[in-house]
């Protein structure tokens, strides 16, 4: 009996020790994140004004704004969505509903798509520069930025779309085929509608990641300082992470402050997109029992 009690005591001790350790580890990460966010907020909130959002960049920090970078970021992300979502979802449909799953080629393809998701962003930048800018000759334009970011997030979109499509129960597919409905109409009739929430969340999260990327855009010629707005796909452009990067590399303290404001804008956009993704997932999740 006392032996049993001793063992029980020891188990409780280990349990509690582990608990303390976990809380400690979690607090560290929260502390780091919290300090970082607080620091940025304290530095940047004063200069985060409507003027800041609607003005052109300037050599004087007090007059500088992010308008071209904001428009550039929106433009490049919208184009990226238009390019990457159809291609990504199409690929996922092919791989799940059409391709012969036993073929070695298809297996190799799927393995490689997952691997591509782990390639550093800068590598996609180099690829974009070599192919779209130079080989195709589109130069350092908005559309090249969009193509490059599309390459970057395509693997993520494909993988999440494949997951979403695979999550559609087989009984639903069978039900549709058994009614003499063709494969394509089964895909558009039940499979895609059921997979859409999953595809949307995956795509939105991938796009919000792309919005924060600076490295690949620098490679393909986006700039931190422009004083005009892009009005064609072939125009040069700026983007939020680039203007922040530009400002942080200046020596004056005033620029560090507006850089913090720029980061705040990015954070707010990030929170909005992530919330949208969560809302879409919760609202449209289809119950199947």
């Amino acid at each position: 009996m006392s032996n049993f009690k001793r063992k029980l005591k020891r188990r409780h001790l280990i349990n509690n020790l582990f608990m303390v350790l976990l809380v400690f580890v979690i607090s560290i990460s929260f502390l780091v994140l919290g300090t970082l966010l607080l620091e940025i907020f304290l530095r940047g909130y004063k200069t985060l004004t409507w003027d800041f959002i609607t003005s052109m960049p300037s050599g004087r920090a007090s007059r500088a704004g992010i308008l071209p970078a904001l428009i550039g970021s929106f433009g490049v992300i919208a184009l990226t969505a238009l390019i990457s979502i159809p291609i990504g979802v199409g690929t996922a449909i092919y791989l799940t509903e059409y391709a012969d799953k036993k073929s070695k080629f298809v297996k190799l393809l799927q393995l490689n798509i997952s691997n591509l998701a782990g390639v550093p962003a800068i590598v996609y930048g180099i690829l974009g520069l070599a192919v779209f800018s130079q080989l195709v000759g589109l130069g350092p334009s908005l559309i090249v930025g969009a193509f490059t970011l599309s390459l970057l997030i395509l693997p993520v979109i494909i993988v999440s779309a494949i997951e979403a499509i695979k999550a559609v129960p087989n009984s639903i597919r069978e039900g549709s085929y058994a009614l003499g409905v063709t494969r394509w109409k089964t895909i558009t009739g039940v499979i895609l509608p059921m997979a859409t929430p999953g595809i949307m969340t995956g795509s939105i999260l991938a796009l919000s990641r792309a919005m924060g990327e600076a490295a690949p855009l620098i490679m393909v010629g986006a700039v931190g300082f422009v004083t005009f707005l892009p009005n064609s796909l072939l125009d040069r452009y700026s983007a939020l992470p680039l203007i922040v990067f530009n400002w942080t590399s200046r020596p004056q303290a005033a620029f560090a402050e507006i850089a913090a404001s720029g980061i705040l804008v990015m954070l707010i956009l990030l929170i909005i997109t992530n919330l949208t993704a969560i809302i879409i997932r919760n609202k449209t999740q289809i119950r199947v029992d």
Partner: protein
Amino acid sequence: MTVKVKVENLNFYYGDFQALKNINIEIHENKITALIGPSGCGKSTFIKTIDRMYDLIEDTRADGHILFDEMDILKSDVDVVELRKRIGMVFQKPNPFPKSISENVLYAVKRHGDVNKVAFNEIVENSLRKASLWDEVKSKLHQSAFSLSGGQQQRLCIARTLATKPEVILMDEPTSALDPIATSKIEELLQELKKEYTVIIVTHSMQQAARISDYTGFFLNGELIEFGNTKDIFTNPKDKRTEDYITGRYG
């Protein structure tokens, strides 16, 4: 009496495994044919050959003949989409689409595209009436099919199949997920349906087969051991194995 589906020397394989061995059977028009037999004997496999649903499973193969009004279903050039419009299937577990009740009924009709829009309401009502579901759902046609009970969902799946105007309806244990009341509703319904359709039903319940069917086939280990009038099979089986099964000496 007309033979609607005639199966000759049917063999079926999942990879190297032979699941059906030299099946010969004649399915009569406007009759209910019940298929019974222990788990794993090949009943589901057999009905999947009739509407070529096995095409969806990789590495499967069938040989022999299944004649459906002179057309050989197993021929590789058969248009399976057309075939499945004429031979409908109802599954063991109700599998309504995540759409409204009326959209479920119209799902295939709309996608086949050979019916005018003005007929849609009529198709919904007729199909639901034939499936004995109309009175229960007529006031909530636009609600999700998931709001229905299991038995109602299964009748919705039957209505959905009827909407495509099939000639033959295959049913794989359609009542095994349902309670006795829902089951008896579907059994009553089957008696109505056979006036217009030819029905093949797989069932684990001997009583059900005896109650509802005109013909019964007994499967064992991929073979059709005995086939004949339901009455004869249950009162006077010729094969010892059939007798053992219907008297409950098998699993």
